[in-house]
């Protein structure tokens, strides 16, 4: 399973890579929006995880989602928000913007991995 993780914080990107790699997924890291947009055109992706705060003067995760939605290649690819914005109302805000799922930081990996596993199962069914 190919997963794109858009994250500017290097430590967080690294730990995500380590956690998901253990479960036989391939994690591609993009540090900012423009890198991510480049990547989606080159790689065949099954899931995209997006941090919201991507640094000062950078395109944020919400804008990036809008850009993704305009691209036909990843039209059907699920996009999850993975963010430290976890005040009351934040989850609803991001779901309303169009994210397919929302994970607050610190990330509950048990839950994330189970969602990815379910996703993988349904993908296998479709391809077979």
């Amino acid at each position, binding site marked *: 399973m190919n997963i794109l993780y858009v994250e500017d*914080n290097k*430590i*967080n990107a*690294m*730990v*995500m890579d*380590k*956690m998901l790699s*253990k479960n036989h997924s391939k994690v591609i890291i993009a540090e900012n929006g423009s890198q991510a947009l480049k990547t989606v055109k080159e790689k065949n992706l099954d899931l995209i995880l997006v941090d919201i*705060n991507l*640094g*000062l003067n950078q395109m944020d995760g919400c804008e990036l989602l809008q850009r993704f939605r305009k691209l036909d290649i990843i039209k059907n690819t699920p996009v999850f928000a993975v963010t*430290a*914005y*976890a*005040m009351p109302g934040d989850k609803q805000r991001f779901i309303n913007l169009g994210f397919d799922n929302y994970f*607050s*930081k*610190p*990330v509950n*990996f048990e839950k994330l991995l189970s969602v990815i596993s379910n996703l993988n199962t349904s993908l296998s069914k479709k391809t077979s």
Partner: protein
Amino acid sequence: MPFTLEQFEILAEKTLLFLFVLKKDGKIFTFNNRCEVLFPFNKDQIKGKQITDYIIDEDISLFKSSVSRLSEKNPLTVETFRFPTIQNGVLALKFDLTLHNNLIYAAGIDTTEEYKEHRALITISKLTKTGAWYFNPKNKEMYWSKGCYAIKDLDPNTPMTRGLGASFYPKESRERVENYLNTLIKTKEPYEYTEKIITGKGNQKWVKVVAQPVIYKNEVVYVNGTIADVTDRHDYIEKLKYNEETKHLALKGIQSGLFDHLIEKNEVFYSSDFKKMLGLPPDQDYVPEEKFRTMIHPDDVDTAFARHKENLKKPGNHYHNHYRLKHFKNGYRHYEVHGYRRKNQKGETIRMVGNLIDVHQKKINEKTIQDNKSKLQAMVNNGMDYIILLNVQGKILLADEDSIKIIKRDYNVDPMKTSCLFIDVMPINYKSTFAHSFNEALKGNTVRKEIERNTHVGTNQWLETKYIPILDDQSNVNTVLITFRDITEEKLAQLVIKEAQIREQELDDLKSNILSNFSHEIRTPLNGIITISKLLQDEDDNEERNKLIDYLDESKNRLLDTLNTLASYSEIESIQKNLSYSQIDVNYVVETSYRNYIHLAKTKNLDYRIELDESCPESIVDENLFKTALDNIIHNALKYTNKGSVQIKINTKRSKKNIYIYIIDTGIGIDKKNYEKIFDPFIQESIGLSRKYEGTGIGLSLSRRYIEVLGGKIKVKSKLNKGTEFLIIIPKSL
């Protein structure tokens, strides 16, 4: 024994009677000598001529109708015919006409004298609209002359029946009228009465009836009477009565006394009302001048007499004077005299007729109105508001002094001297609002409007306008009171409150924004720490473990930094709750802050100075907030200056409204692209400032927020490695 023919012929010739024998058709058959005076020709020529040829025109038809009435059954009639004669004028002959063997035997007697009297009576009767009547109580026979019929608008041939006379009186008087006659027969006393009748044609008339008894052996055998149409006179009397009454009432109503002063004879006649008013005896017609002087109020005597003399000399005929007179019981009262002067050929006033009018109540009312008006004016002038009273046409009836001043100044009109419409003396852009509100007020509604205007000195003024309809006792709108209240201060206060509310809201937003940012900043490193801890449990490779521990350490440090910042930030809550604005002496507060850091400046061996402003500027701020912001910036300047100077300057001359406080250092400086970023509390890490500016981002950011909450601004100018200038701008209190 019958007459012999000879005897008869002699008798016929000697008699005073005029004798004719006529044929049935009126042709003359024969006549006696006496008749010759009736004819201009001799006897033989007359025979065979029509007798009607010799009767005056007016009586011809009467003759014809009399002759035609004669028949075998009714052979006798009596009628008078008039004949013109050469010598004696018109003779009136009363004939007995007898039909016998188809010949008419006419025996006439000269009734000229009686006839003259009769005609005269008829004329009188006609001219005076009078009729005569008689009544025989024995056989109840009633006779009416033609005049009686004429008065009652009846045909003279109407047959007389019992009760005919009474039938013309209205029901309510009929019995009374019948009783008059019965009473006369009993008492034998004459009577007269005037009553209303309704004639045969339905006209209403007033009649005067007079009756006189004829007595024989102490018994009424006959009643003679007249009836006269007195409608005109009755109406006239009624009218006269009415006029008298009107005059009487009018005189009573005006509480006036009439006088007639014959100046030449120096006689004055007073009406009884006049005498009554002044308490003079009713028989005293003349009041000498000396006496009259004592009756006039002492303050008015001289002016009243002076005016009197002036009046007599004046051209024209009018006389007017006024003074207070001693009323017989009410003390002195105000009177006005209006008179008409008659002059002789020399133009001297010889007589004066006029009346004295009690105008006391009027005078008192005028005085009361004047007093009330002055009181009202005083109230109006001393009130805080502008007040204008308009009548229903929109004319200014009353205005306070300030309004009048404004109108005089701007429109060159004095509304108290010339009547002017309020709409004409207001700025054009208010006219439609005024017209609308005024119309609403005329309907009885109170209208309230706020208007903003520029005063003549150019400042902005807010006015609260009220249109208050004033009703008369019939509940109709009588006048409209317009008040203008200066609510500029209230408005400004409202604006300040609103601004304060906005600032408070901004502080609230800032608080939740800060909270959200803190949450984000804690969760980010926590994500690393928790995940790395999990990874460490499963990691066997040593090198990889050390790498993970390094990452763990970095995340831990970042978390600690954030928590330290949080501690300093918790202050904001308590400050925000206790905002209290007061007037401060800016020189004093800035100098106090300055003194707090003298020690720090000394240890760093810096040139640390302050320059106060001579005008002792004042500002209305929350002193705590202001001082915290100021302290932060001064401390910041000293902290990042390692050599050179830190100067503080206060300047009020640059602006009318604001106070400028400069904090200028020769420290490390800030790159221009980071001017704004230094005020963002959570930016250090991303732009790599955290090491150099450790713990400062939050201070500057708070300082800026505080100054903004107080209505001011912080600006920054800097050159890298040369120094930084912070400028705090706060509003002056006026």
